[in-house]
């Protein structure tokens, strides 16, 4: 398969890159001096694209690669791939579901604890060397807080299961109510926001869920509400969120994703009730390896004309 051209959209994982290099003719898209002339000269050599949460295969790229057969995403999210165009052209699409569910859910709970219990602030306080007996960092209890989940898919359910062990009552919003689920359903995000202490975004990013966290939802959350985003940056109207946090109209936030990564609004840097992470939801040694193996497995299956492991299209 060394003659099969694979275009790697951006640097994402050195093990993955190594494996792709070994098995295919690998093109590193971010190293070419001029992307359009590269595509023009290599359009007949590229049969696969490997993307991730940052860069995938939009309509323009798909049109530029007439020999493209498969897009394998190093992510579970598909928002960077033009699925309609892929379906139209019979291009297969795969992602990395299940292997990262636990890590993302773990991080969501980790963010809830970090925000409510001020773990990062406490750590900063001790490191400053200024800890004197009698000075303590006061925090908010997590056990028993009402957790509202937007999107009760694999990741949403995993978050619910974990939060339940902390005696957190669970409620959710989903496109449709799930009658077999025992958690309380709210038919709108605003209602969900008004009835929970901690709101978590765990749904896919689509046209419908773009800015699903807007001013109305933030107002409904109130000055004690905490927002956790382990979905995609564009789920949140970021300027609205920033002003709500700066003006203390919202109680706190734990954010792993942003509208314009790796750029994070600097107004958030000085806020002790906000925890900011550099999109590490699936960022563990174990899970990234499993994701990479899934990408390689899907590509090999495709080119060996075997059933895909985790097809989306």
């Amino acid at each position: 398969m060394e003659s099969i051209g694979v275009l790697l959209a951006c640097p994402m994982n050195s093990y993955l890159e190594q494996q792709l290099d070994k098995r295919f003719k690998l093109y590193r898209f971010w190293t070419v001096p001029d992307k359009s002339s590269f595509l023009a000269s290599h359009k007949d050599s590229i049969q696969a694209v490997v993307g991730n949460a940052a860069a995938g295969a939009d309509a323009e790229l798909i049109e530029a690669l007439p020999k493209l057969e498969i897009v394998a995403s190093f992510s579970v999210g598909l928002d960077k791939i033009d699925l309609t165009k892929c379906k139209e052209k019979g291009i297969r699409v795969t992602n990395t579901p299940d292997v990262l569910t636990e890590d993302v859910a773990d991080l969501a709970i980790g963010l809830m604890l970090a925000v409510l219990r001020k773990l990062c602030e406490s750590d900063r306080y001790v490191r400053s060397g200024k800890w004197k007996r009698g000075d303590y960092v006061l925090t908010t209890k997590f056990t028993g807080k009402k957790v509202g989940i937007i999107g009760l898919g694999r990741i949403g359910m995993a978050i619910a299961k974990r939060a339940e062990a902390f005696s957190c009552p669970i409620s959710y919003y989903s496109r449709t109510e799930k009658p077999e689920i025992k958690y309380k359903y709210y038919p709108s995000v605003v209602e969900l926001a008004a009835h929970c202490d901690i709101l978590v975004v765990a749904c896919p990013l689509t046209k419908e869920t773009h800015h699903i966290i807007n001013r109305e939802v933030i107002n409904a959350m109130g000055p004690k509400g905490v927002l956790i985003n382990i979905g995609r940056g564009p789920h949140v109207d970021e300027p609205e969120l920033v002003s709500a946090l700066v003006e203390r109209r919202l109680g706190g936030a734990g954010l792993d994703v942003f509208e314009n990564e790796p750029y994070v609004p600097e107004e958030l840097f000085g806020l002790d009730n906000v925890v900011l992470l550099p999109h590490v939801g699936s960022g563990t040694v174990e899970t990234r390896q499993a994701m990479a193996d899934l990408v390689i497995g899907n590509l090999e299956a495709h080119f060996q004309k075997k059933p895909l492991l985790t097809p989306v299209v």
Partner: protein
Amino acid sequence: MAAEDQSQTSQSDLPYVLILKPPPSFVLFGDHFFHSPNFQYLKAYESPLPLPHFLHTHARSVQALLSSGGAPVTADTIRLLPRLGLVVTTSQGLNHIDLSECRRRGIAVAGAGTIFSADCADSAVGLLIDVLRKISAANRYVKQGLWSSQGIYPLGYKLGGKHVGIVGLGSIGTEVAKRLEPFGCSISYNSRSKKPLVPYTFYPNVVELAANCDALIICCALTDETHHLISKEALLALGKDGVIINIARGPIIDEKELVHCLVKGEIRGAGLDVFEHEPDVPVELFALDNVVMSPHNAVFTRESFDDLCKLVVGNLEAFFSNEPLLTPVALDDLPHFSGRKD
């Protein structure tokens, strides 16, 4: 015995509760939250008299003492208070109280019961996730503007599937285990004795426990037996992929050895709410990204504070009206507490 209107009843009618040093919650929140119309506080720390003089002066009036970790209740103190019938502590730990002397004198002790267990367990889990997933370190990275300038942050480690060893499966240890189960962790423990109805694997000593787990969580009391329980041997048994979380008491871990292991990479990381010589923390830890620290504040949530006020007042009122204490500490099967300062 209820005094309806304090201004009408003479203050001297109300029984005294002695306080040697203000508990952290008095300082943080204010002592008016601990007020009761049924007793009054005798604050040694507000008197210009040196303590021994103060105690001699007021010894006969004191039937109850409100204590906290920073104000040890030693045999010497107890001997100066012939009418002492109750010690109430605001802390979870009891290592600062000479329980043997209390038992000898027939003095009852009221503790925190289980009001802090959830917060302590939440702290333990929060610290564990933070250390493995580098939450505090990555938050620092982003807030210093390094994500846009330096790029991708190093990978953390998965919590799911890890073997977690709990040292001390009491109320707090049990709450920790309960929380970690849905994360896919397998739980084992070491305790003074095996617990028959518990689904977790028991190891008879801490070194064996450490050798068989990826994360050790310290949830036991500080006693003479558990002092430096986590020794160099236990830390090396825990190993290079191992993490240790301490939300119990600093002296349970040999801190010098812990620092050495962390600096040398003999263990993967640590989450510490407590230290051997608080508020002093070994400066070598400040340079390490794989250590997460907190200033002994695992129980300092507003909610626990509310529960604590009710409990302290409730125990004292019960005592003074000859009712059963809300959270009596059993003094018959005591491990060894030397009444050492917390």
